[in-house]
């Protein structure tokens, strides 16, 4: 089984890259490849799901114990969430900007992931599973929100400068991009709230090193507060358009920074290896 896991680990970035290329081709040409691009994305996700299951069975823990295991889950969550979004809204022209992120997460994961048979006992808890699952979907929401925010800025600038190229042709209109950015952020925020709540209840009981001044916890709180304020201000009509999407992008950049800092630079109870 180890051999299969290693093979899929190499194949996954290739699969994501090929899916990205199909989406790129669809974006650049007038030939609509709706069926084939969705088929290829679905196939990639199925292979990825098999990989996650095989790892879980073989190493006797879900792949959540370090940043590289989390990155592979994040790659899956982002693309999976996007596929659902594409099927529900039938939007065209934004997939490649999201799949490239999954590719980036996956290639980092594939390069550095290790075969960990020994993990700390608390990492086998079911409550932890819910905590991680909600956090990951939350991060996927935040990531997708940032991508739509970025696309909003690109289209906004194109329109302001009267550039009517591919972005003008292919992207949905500004209002739709703003909505996609906002609703993805709301979903991300709700799930992040669940993850934080479970974390605060569960972590002090299981982790002797738990501290409310932990850098990861503080970083996550900061992100949560930024998104919370942004959503409230949007709700009351105080924040919209360009400013709204900039808040989303800042939130995403902070999320990534927080994850990297807490895992590599600072000593956090979220570093499990």
């Amino acid at each position, binding site marked *: 089984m180890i051999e299969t896991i290693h093979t899929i680990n190499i194949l996954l970035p290739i699969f994501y890259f090929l899916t990205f290329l199909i989406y790129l081709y669809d974006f650049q040409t*007038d030939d609509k490849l709706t069926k084939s691009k969705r088929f290829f994305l679905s196939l990639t996700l199925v292979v990825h799901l098999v990989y996650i299951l095989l790892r879980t069975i073989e190493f006797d823990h879900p792949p959540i114990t370090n940043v590289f295991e989390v990155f592979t889950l994040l790659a899956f969550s982002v693309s999976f969430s996007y596929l659902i979004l594409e099927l529900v809204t039938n939007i065209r022209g934004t997939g490649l900007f999201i799949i490239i992120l999954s590719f980036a997460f996956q290639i980092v994961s594939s390069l550095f992931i290790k075969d960990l048979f020994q993990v700390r006992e608390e990492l086998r808890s079911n409550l932890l599973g819910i905590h991680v699952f909600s956090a990951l979907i939350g991060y996927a929401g935040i990531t997708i929100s940032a991508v739509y925010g970025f696309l909003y800025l690109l*289209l906004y600038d194109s*329109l*302001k400068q*009267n550039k*009517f190229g591919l972005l*003008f042709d292919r992207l*949905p*209109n*500004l*209002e*739709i991009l703003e*909505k996609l950015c906002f609703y993805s952020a709301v979903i991300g925020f709700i799930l992040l709230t669940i993850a934080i709540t479970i974390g605060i209840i569960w972590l002090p009981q299981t982790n002797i090193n738990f501290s409310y001044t932990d850098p990861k916890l503080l970083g996550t709180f900061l992100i949560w507060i930024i998104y919370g304020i942004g959503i409230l201000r949007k709700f009351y*009509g105080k924040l*919209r*358009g*360009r400013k709204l999407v900039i808040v989303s992008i800042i939130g995403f950049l902070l999320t990534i920074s927080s994850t990297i800092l807490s895992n590599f630079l600072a000593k956090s109870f979220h570093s499990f290896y």
Partner: protein
Amino acid sequence: MNIIGISINHRTASVELRESLNLNSDELKNLISTLKQNILKEGLIISTCNRTEILGITYSDSISFDNLISTLINFKKVNGISSDLFEKYRSLQVVEHLFRLITGIDSMLVGDNQIFKQVKDSFQLADEHNFIGFYFKKIMDFCLRIGKRAITETSISEGAVTISFAAVQLIEKIFANLSKKSALIIGTGETGEIAAKHLREKGVARLALTNRTFDKAEKLAKELNTAVFPFDNFKEHLHKFDIIISATGSQNVILTKDDIEKAMTKRNYEPIVIADIAVPRDIDISCRDIENVFYNDIDSLKIIVEQNLQKRRNEIPKVEKIIEEELNNFSEWLNSLQVSPIIKSLREKFESIRAEEVANNINKFAAEDREKLEIVTKKIINKLLHYPTVELKKYANDENAQDLNRIRLSVVKEIFGLNSIKDEEKN
């Protein structure tokens, strides 16, 4: 069968000349009657702002293009139009021309989607006046199918190709739902009127007009059921609108950056789209620096139009492929008409022999076997005729051996005694 066609169009004649030969619906009916008398057995007249065309099957081979041209010119009683201003088509060229026409690739604005309806209406009018016969009925079916295929299988009709539509396309790139937006049209000349009508068609929630001559704005407002603001104070209402289209004949700027800035402050910087389609411009171009103001003048809208036209031009090979495919299908159908009387006659002959022999010998079979006898003998006939039928159809479609095929068909008629077909053909 002598099928011919003439066309005076945007490629061959000026708008004045085209206008002089344009036919209204009454004239179309009368001209159809004239043509039916002794020139065309069946046919079609198409008359739009860009073309007037007569296409049909003549009563005799001696009827030429000049007959059609002179009939049209005499009917319209115009002078100074030479035969050189007409494009002329013969036989399958007529069909190919109609195929190209209905797909829009022959139009002045490539992919013009109005032409499909115009050609369809022309066929309908001809049909109502019994001008559509056996052949043109088939041509009509092919045309309608090809027109639909071009729209669904290619992007030949996609994208805005007029300034007013380009403005609407731009607006739709900013706002998702026009039914929740309000628009102000400044200037109710021809351009402003077209823009107002486009926005109305797109379902904009609230439309208002303003014009230096209030009466003119009021008249259009009644027609479109919109509000009207006096020109003197329309600036006070600017903040209420998400879309502003300006198309006046003013020589000076009507709206300054400061006017737009004030409106934006009042509307809490909600996005606003400004399409300034006037020449010279009505609105200070520097307003595009204000956040959430999307300003476009006629030059930027022309870029959209030109890009869309180029995209449509890029689709022409795809449409031509459809036309080629359907033209082959049409030729096959036409050729099959030559052999189908022979096939029909051959089958009738074999069937009559079979029926006669079965009738003569039916008593030699038990009652319970008689039905089987019918089935078996019919099967034998079908099997015997299957190969000759296939071969005859092949002859029909082998355009490289027309003379040989004529001989082959005549041999088939001769050896099977199918001479009655000659009489049918004569009729």
